[in-house]
């Protein structure tokens, strides 16, 4: 069976697939939730009402209530700001670090490349969350430290990709052609290497955002990041952990929000990647 051909774009045409359109919608909703939460959920996320504790989903409370009677729907919407902000920050830290490492390794002299690659390799030896946990045990738990921790833990992966992209572009034939035309190194980096790598960076950032949201909320779930009563999704999940058996909505809906945003970011990231490949 052949690879299903996506609507082949003529130079410039940009037709989103169904999945991409949905993902875009989700992200827009998330953005609105993050910037103007009162638009979608006019209530107060911290409003406690013990009489209404543990209510299942109903027209009055779309997502149900938690152990203190707080409306979950409102909390999920208001939590978007916190969770997304942390996710963006963690991604920014990770990619920022990775750009420095990747470019230094990709463009620098061989010894610098060697050293930086070794450093990245060492960081890689700590899989997944472990590097983040190591960081947290040193600095103590909290929102800021978990954000930095996730950034640090994701950086080596991005650095590797950026470095190989930079290397590949730097040794491409059009760079040699530019040298024949008499261009200087700095000019080549600015006019040829950066634009070609930026496209990949964008993809990386989008895909990475999805991952970062998941990791950050995982740390909160473990009690190492944001803590209740903060309306951060992971924290809500942590609170709901003990009540899974009877009050499933406390964990289900915040988790759904996490999955939705992560999946949406991934779909969009892949969509950009596909278009980069066909346009370039």
């Amino acid at each position, binding site marked *: 069976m052949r690879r299903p051909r996506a609507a082949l774009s003529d*130079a410039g045409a940009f037709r989103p697939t169904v999945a991409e359109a949905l993902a875009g919608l989700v992200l827009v909703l998330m953005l609105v939730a993050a910037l103007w939460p009162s638009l979608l959920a006019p209530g107060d996320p911290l409003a406690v009402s013990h009489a209404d504790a543990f209510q299942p989903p109903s027209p009055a409370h779309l997502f149900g209530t938690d152990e203190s009677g707080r409306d979950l729907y409102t909390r999920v919407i208001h939590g978007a700001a916190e969770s997304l902000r942390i996710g963006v920050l963690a991604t920014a830290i990770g990619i920022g670090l990775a750009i420095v490492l990747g470019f230094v390794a990709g463009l620098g002299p061989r010894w610098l490349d060697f050293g930086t690659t070794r450093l990245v390799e060492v960081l890689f030896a700590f899989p997944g969350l472990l590097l983040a946990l190591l960081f947290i045990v040193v600095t103590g738990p909290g929102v800021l430290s978990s954000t930095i921790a996730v950034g640090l833990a994701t950086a080596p992966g991005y650095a590797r990709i950026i470095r190989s992209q930079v290397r590949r572009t730097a040794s491409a*034939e059009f760079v*040699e052609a530019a040298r*024949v035309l008499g261009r*200087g190194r700095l000019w080549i980096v600015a006019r040829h290497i950066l634009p*070609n790598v930026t496209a990949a960076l964008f993809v990386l950032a989008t895909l990475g955002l999805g991952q970062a949201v998941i990791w950050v909320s995982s740390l909160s779930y473990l009690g190492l990041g944001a803590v209740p009563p903060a309306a951060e999704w992971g924290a809500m999940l942590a609170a709901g952990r003990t009540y899974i058996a009877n009050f499933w909505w406390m964990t289900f809906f915040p988790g759904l929000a996490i999955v939705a945003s992560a999946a949406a970011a991934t779909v969009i990231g892949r969509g950009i990647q596909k278009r980069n490949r066909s346009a370039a």
Partner: protein
Amino acid sequence: MSGSNPQGPTPAAPAAPVLTVRDLAVAFPDRRGERRVVDGVSFQVVAGECVAIVGESGSGKSVTARSIVGLAGEGARVSAAELTVAGQDVLSLSGRRLRRLRGGTVGLIAQDALVSLDPLRPIGREIGDTLALHTGLDAAARRARTIELLERVGLPDAELRSRQRPGQLSGGQRQRALIAAGIAGEPELLIADEPTTALDQPVQAGVLRLLGELRDEGTGVLLISHDLSVVLGIADRVLVMTDGVVVEEGTPSEVFERPKHPYTRKLVDAVPAGVPRGTPLTAAAPAAVGPTAAPAAGVERRSSRGMTADEATRPTFGDVLLEAHGLGRRFHVSGREIVAADDVSFSLRAGRTLGLVGESGSGKSTTARLLLGLDRPDAGEVTLLGEPWSRLPEARRRPRRPLVGAVFQDALSSFDPRWTVGAILADAVTRGRSTRPGPVRAEVTALLDTVGLEPALTTRRPLHLSGGQRQRVAVARALAADPRVLILDEPVSALDVSVQAQVLDLLDRLQRERGLAYLLITHDLGVALHMSDDIAVLKDGRIVELGPAATASVTSQPSASRPACR
């Protein structure tokens, strides 16, 4: 054909047709419905005969060949008045009977054995599979037969080779192994689709000789190729295809010495082999600005950039412009040392072309890079207009770089994929300095005109140009700085013959108008001898021969001169 008989010639029994094709049509679904790739093709192949189909890319020759075994491609709609192989109607076959036809009655040999053989499996297994499918031999007999087959195709150390994977063999050995797999089922018809691409000349000759032997033994051979010289030495009959139809048919001598159809004539004329230096290969006169306009604009530009006065004058024909003195370059790759250049010396003169030929891996590209200052020689030096060139630090070299231009082999990868043609040329014209857009645009248009392209192309990206257009843009870019010397690294090897002819004519005209010195690197002897005044032969990094093209020893090689009929 028949032996001499003192009582007069005995009429030979007509050989049975192994393949009969009548009115074959193949169409593929398209955005707007259907696209006919093959439209009404008819021909026959009898046992012990070699029929060749020649054509350029997109002519439909490959699809024709593959539809004979039902492998035209995904989504293809194949129809024919008759498509018979050894008495069987192919179009009515399916499932097991079709699979038995494939490999058993018809063997298909694809091009580029590196990707056509499973890289993970030893070649002995690939051959063994064919034997298992089409013969009743047991495992031990299969192994023995595999070795026999490998020896038959001329592979030494057959026992050892059968256990090796394709990546461990050379290009020619792989192709022979592929042929062995193709004949393992003892087919009556052998289809060879471009069996000699990516092979060096002497290796090509060996593979063709093998196909000829198979033909002599009674197998019918259908040979597909874009390379006319390949076909001439071995084919009994030739079909010329373009745009899905056969435009000419006949014996090689008929087709190539007395072509009837204008397309065939154009194709034959476009072959550079044997055409004397300076004779154009194409009939059409390229769109041209007057010969004086371009150089004059160049002079204006250069004096406005403040170059020294003596460089603004045009050199006389024959002046030495770029010289290599004893260049040496070695590489260390994982413990082994590769000699890419060893005591390489030659000079490039204004208005003259030096052709640099050699097999792949002989060091041609390294030499080009040394001349362009992209790499530093370990020994010797390069001088430009008598002054040091390779010795200079890059900063001191940069102001003189406009004097040396380059056209690379793969035009597509020599352009930044995100830039449009207009951006590429404007960048080459302004050389990074900011200038007003008006004069730049005018100069870009003039450049495009010089190479025979319309100004409308400035908004397109290289990916959306044809191969010939891309190569012309590459030439335009090289000309933008008004160079004295052009290094041309395999400038036409990826192009179809007719497009190749146009580009070669363009290069020739530019050289005469501007007095450029060319270093033409190519593996194609026909191109080299047509375009060059002098020839240098490179082997393992050393120049083994250097002299005028007319007396070069390579002229005696079969592919070099106008091919004679068999």
